[in-house]
Structures are given as C-alpha cells and as structure tokens.
C-alpha cells in the first residue's frame, strides 16, 4: 500500500461526509485563528517595545561602570587595555571601547583671529574608532580616524559632534551680552538659521592645556585639532555626537600624560586616571583603569550572558536588557492569558476531531474488518485514520491562517477602516493592556498592532495538524483493535 493510496483513502473518507468534516474543520479554524491572532498581537507589542528601547539606546550594548567611588573597587581587576583585549576575545563580543575621559584636564579650544572664539573641552573622549563603527555611530561628513593616521607632532585628529561649533563663545563680548553665545536652532528675523561663529571644518582649531605647577605658575601647551569628520547627532548614543570631541584612545592618553607633566606630575590630585599603555607609566595604586567601557554584543539575546560574564569579573554593568526583559515578561504574561483562552478553543476542537473520528470508525467498522481480512496491516489502518485526522487539522489550520491574515490586516488598518465608517477608535487601551503601559512616546497610529511572521504560519499549520493527529490517535488505535471477524459480521 503506497502513501498515495493512503492519502486517497483518507481524503475520500473526508469527502464522503462533507457536512461533518466541515463542522469539525470549523472547530479547528476557530482554535488556530484565535491562537495565531493572540500570538501576533504579542509579537507586535514586543516589536513596538523593541523599537522604543532602540530609540532609548543600543540594545546590544553593555556599559561597564568602573568609577572609583563605586563599591567593591578593591576586588575589581584593573580595567586597562589588557583587560579590554580580554573582553574583545569573549564570544559574542563584537567591539569594546573605553569612554576615556580625563576629568583633570583643564583645556580650552580656540579659533579665530587672536583666539577670539573659545570653547571648553568638557566632553573630550578617547575612544576605539573601530568600535564606534561597530556601534553604528554615523558621520555626516569626513571619516573615522584610521589607526595609522599621523599628522605630525602636536596635531591631533578628532571627530566633532554635529553641533560642536555652537560651543564657541565670542570672548570680545561680555558674559552678560546676548551676543556672546549662539545657539543651535536659533533663527534670525527672516527665519534663517544663525550660523555658529566658527566653521569647525575649515577654521584652525587650537587646543590649549592650562595647568599650574606647585608654585602656582601657569603653564600652557598647545595642540592643533584637525577635524577628520563630524558626527551625526544620535541621542541614543554618546553625548559627544551632539557637542563633544572624540579622538583615539592613544591621543587622549598622550594629552593626559602631557597634562600631568605640565602640572608637575602630581598624582594626588585625586581620581586621576592614567592608563598604562605599552611603554607607558605604571599604574598607581588607586588607579583602577578606565572608568567607563562599552561592550558591543552581536545579538540582543546574548547580551545577558556576556553581561553576566563581565559581572563575574567583578565589574558593575548596565544595559537595556533588564528593561527589555521586564517588558517582555509583561507581554508574555498577557499573551499567556489570551493564548490560554485560545488554547481552550483548540482543545475543544481537538475533542471535536476525536469525536468525529470515533463516529467515523464506528460507521466503518465493517470496512475496517474487510480490509483486515483482505490483508491490510494494522499499521496501515491506523495510519489511514491518523492521516484523516491530521488532514482535518491541517485544513483547519490553513483556513485559520488565512482568516488570521485577514484579521491582522483589519486590525492594522483599523483607523482607516474606522475613518471610512465615519468614526474613530482608540486602541491605546487594548495595546497598553499588552505592554503594561510602555507605549508613551510611540507613534501608535503607524505601528502594527498585529504581526504574523512566516514562522508563526508554519507553527500554526504544524500545531493544528499535530492537534489533529494527536486527537485521532486514540480512535485510530481503537480502530486497529477491532476484531476482523466481528467487524465483518457488524451490521
């Protein structure tokens, strides 16, 4: 007996009892439909959460917070370049960069004739350029600084934030004058934006370190900043993309060293962070390495693992994962409740199938007997009924999937549909019941309420078929137990 024969026999039997088959299939349709729609709602709200978190910050990023005043600093291994190399070697870690800032440095940036324009270098960071690229920092113009870029002594290649130019003040104007500073977004009387004092990409920028030695004498040292590129402002990333300066770690270390030398090599100034690079000055005891390091992970799902590994080293970390997991748990909870209801529908459908199969087998007792006597193996009889039950499930699944696509389409265009009928529908209640009230700040109208990914279709079909087969199992086994002799006497 071939598989094609098995399929033909089973589907023939279904076709013979069209009404009953249809009713049973409808049961499965209802069950599959409700489960798929419920899951699709959950997927959509998860997707919305994800999009929202993404707007808050990179989900695949872990921040190591190694500030000196942090707890347990005694047991924590030094977060130096060697440690960064170790972190880079971890599985799933894509890139690692320190957010290296020297809070001791007193530095200003000057531009214009006679250093007329001045800006404070508050937000000056040493970073790993490759890591920035991996973390999807974007430039409006220019390019990231290469490892081998060498502009000569006292010339530092830098990247500036999109609006860094507005940091400059006109030192000729008094502090009280409204003309001392210009702000981004301001417009003149005609509505044209007011340009900053300095064209950072073309004007010469001078970085001046100012320190006082033990005798109180002012000492200065100057460097030229060469702008290699301008960041695109991204509030989900570091502030320096807005109005800061980023340079290579080694340049920052060089500045740091130069400043320490300028100020007489004093270590006791408190919290000075000196990092030992190759050939550098040894670390002092209170030094604990970089204060802030970012680790980029390849996938959101691996973040918590990597974070755990880093925490096990003794570091304090933070990431979006915690918030994300909490949100997901919320969605999962409401999905469980609604999905459970849907599962009840499918359970009823399963009982329905079982009942239909029992009836079918009772009606066909004689047929089964004849088949047995004519040499049909028990296994094939069982398979015949299993295929029949599975076909009911599959058929219901197919119709259920199609219907849920329709429902999904309707839900996602509800505002449009409502507009056609001249009414408005507020769905915020429905959606917030899912996400647990995380929906503020989202554009509710444009976001999908229901998402049916391909895997859900496959799952729906597979599950409905499985339900069919499982509920056909017992009747099918009963069918095989029918005694051939009694069956052929059965009227």
């Amino acid at each position, binding site marked *: 007996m071939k598989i094609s024969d098995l399929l033909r026999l089973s589907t023939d039997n279904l076709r013979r009892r069209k009404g009953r088959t249809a009713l049973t299939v409808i049961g499965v349709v209802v069950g599959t439909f409700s489960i798929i729609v419920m899951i699709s709602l959950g997927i959509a709200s998860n997707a919305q959460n994800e999009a929202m978190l993404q707007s808050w910050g990179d989900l695949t990023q872990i921040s190591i917070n190694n500030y000196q005043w942090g707890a347990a600093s005694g047991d924590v291994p030094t977060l130096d370049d060697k440690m960064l190399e170790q972190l880079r070697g971890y599985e799933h870690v894509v890139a690692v960069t320190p957010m290296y800032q020297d809070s001791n440095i007193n530095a200003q940036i000057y531009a214009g004739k006679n250093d007329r324009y001045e800006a404070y270098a508050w937000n000056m960071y040493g970073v790993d350029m490759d890591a920035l690229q991996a973390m999807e920092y974007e430039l409006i113009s220019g390019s990231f600084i290469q490892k081998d870029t060498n502009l000569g002594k006292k010339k530092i290649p830098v990247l500036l934030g999109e609006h860094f130019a507005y940091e400059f003040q006109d030192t000729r104007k008094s502090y009280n004058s409204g003309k001392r500073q210009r702000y981004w977004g301001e417009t003149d009387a005609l509505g044209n934006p007011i340009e900053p004092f300095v064209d950072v990409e073309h004007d010469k920028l001078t970085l001046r370190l100012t320190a006082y030695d033990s005798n109180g004498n002012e000492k200065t040292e100057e460097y030229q900043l060469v702008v290699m590129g301008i960041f695109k402002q991204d509030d989900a990333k570091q502030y320096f993309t807005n109005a800061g300066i980023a340079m290579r770690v080694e340049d920052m270390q060089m500045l740091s060293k130069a400043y320490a030398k300028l100020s007489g090599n004093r270590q006791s100034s408190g919290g000075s962070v000196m990092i030992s690079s190759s050939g550098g000055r040894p670390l002092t005891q209170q030094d604990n390495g970089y204060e802030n390091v970012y680790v980029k992970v390849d996938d959101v799902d691996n973040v918590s693992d990597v974070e755990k590994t880093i925490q096990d080293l003794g570091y304090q970390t933070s990431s979006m994962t915690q918030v994300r997991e909490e949100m997901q748990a919320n969605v999962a909870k409401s999905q469980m409740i609604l999905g459970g209801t849907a599962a009840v529908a499918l359970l009823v459908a399963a009982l329905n199938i079982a009942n239909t199969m029992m009836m079918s087998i009772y009606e066909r007792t004689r*047929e089964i007997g*004849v*088949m047995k006597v*004519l*040499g*049909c*193996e*028990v*296994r094939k009889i069982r398979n015949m009924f299993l295929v029949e039950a599975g076909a009911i499930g599959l058929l219901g699944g197919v119709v259920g999937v199609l219907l849920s696509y329709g429902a999904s389409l309707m839900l996602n265009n509800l505002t449009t549909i409502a507009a056609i009928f001249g009414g408005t529908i507020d769905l915020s209640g429905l959606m917030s019941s899912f996400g647990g009230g995380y929906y503020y700040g989202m554009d509710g109208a444009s976001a999908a309420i229901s998402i049916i990914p391909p895997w859900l279709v496959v799952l729906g079909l597979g599950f409905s078929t499985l339900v069919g087969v499982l509920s056909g199992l017992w009747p099918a086994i009963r069918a095989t137990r029918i005694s051939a002799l009694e069956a*052929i006497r059965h009227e």
Partner: protein
Amino acid sequence: MAPIIRVEHLRKVYRVGHEKVVALNDVDLAIEPGEVCCIVGPSGSGKSTLLNQLAGLEKPTKGHVYIGKHDISTMTENELAKFRQEHLGFIFQSYNLLPSMTAAENVALPLMFKGVGRKERIRLATLELKKMGLGKRANHRPTEMSGGQQQRVGIARAFVAKPKVIFADEPTGNLDSQTTRQVLYRMLQMAKENGTTFVMVTHERELSAVADRVVTIMDGKVESNVLMDAQTKAAAQAEMFKDILEQEVPAEPKTTRPLKSEKKSEKQ
C-alpha cells in the same frame, strides 16, 4: 502430493458468560492443493468456526493449522495480514464490498495492500471483472448492482491477486437459486483455471455435489470426509449447471437490440 491445508487436533472453546461452549473438538483434516472442498453441516455445527480457524481469522484454543509450511495458528496479527495478502483470498456471504468504491476499486483492494500501483491494479481488476462478465460494470458502485453482480465482484476480488487458497463463507447464502448456480459455476471455473484450492462453507448440502471433497461437520467434529469420484462429480455438475452449460457463456451484456446477423435473418 503434500496437503496444502493441514489441521491437527484443532479445538476451539468459546466462553459465553460462565459457560464454555465447545465449537470444535479435536478436528483433523487435510486438503490437497487444487481441491474444491465443501464444508457442510447444520447451523451451529461449528463449520463457520472451522473456516475462521483455517483462514487465521481466529486463534484456536488448541491444535494447529498449517497452510503450506506455515503454522498460521502461531502467527502474529501482522504476519497474518502479510500472509493473507500473499496467499489467501476471501469471499463473504454479504459480499462486503466497500460502498464508497467502484467495482474495479473494490476488486483492486488486495492489490493495493500488496503495493501495486493504481493504474496497474485497476487494469488487472478490470480484466478480472471481464472474466466474471462484469466488464461494463467496472465503474459502478456496489449500490448500483444486484446481489449476484455484487457477489461476482466479490469473487473477482478474491481471485485478482492469484492466491493459493480461497475461503468462501456461505457465498451463495443471500442469492436465489438461479443466481446461486451461476455464481457457483463461475467460482468453480475460476478455481480450476487458476489451480486454486477452494474451501467453501455452506449449509445447502445439494451445493456440495460439485466439490472434490465434502467434509461434514456435526457438533464440532468431523462426521464424514468424502472424496468424490470423477464420474459422480461430472454427473452432478452436468445436472446442476445444465441450463448454464446449454447457454454457454451467459449473454452479457444483455442488450435489447438484436445483433446484426439476427436483423438480417429477420428481414429474410
């Protein structure tokens, strides 16, 4: 020649409530290959039980049934199914055709279980139906046929897989005497043509006249086991199938329109 069916000390006891009913008591029997064997006896004598044991539809309480070299009384259900596929054919009193299938599909059932492709088995089934004079009925459903026609479909189904042995349980029990004789004739003819061993249970003693061997069962025991001689057999068959033999092959299909030759003669 070694017997194809051999029964040794066969005993079958049924439990009815707390009582035991002995249906067969120490039956010994041997049937030669190619024989037509009739098992006769009054109702309740145990003849149907014997047939069920011979065909492996029931397990004996004691004793053995051999078909060829195989002891079918020790086979598992699956082995039996395979064995029936390969070697046995069945004809039932109530035809037992599947109502959802056409005549040809019904006849093709044993071939389907054997794994023969659909096209091939429908071809073979139609061939078999033609032999039974039902070539035109191949695509009809059982409900569209008379009892005699249905039983002929049943016979075609039993023979289609060329089994070694065919068991028939009161094959003519539901038919009138005219049809009975026709069906019987067909069965015997087919059995002889194919060299098939044919075991038939009947309570109509007169039908047994056509058999090579007549086994009479009474109260669960073999009362007599008679091998008929050729002469009596020929005489009995000539008597029974008189009208059929005169008619040669029955005019099938029965058309109301006269043949061309007949038309001509009418004109003259």
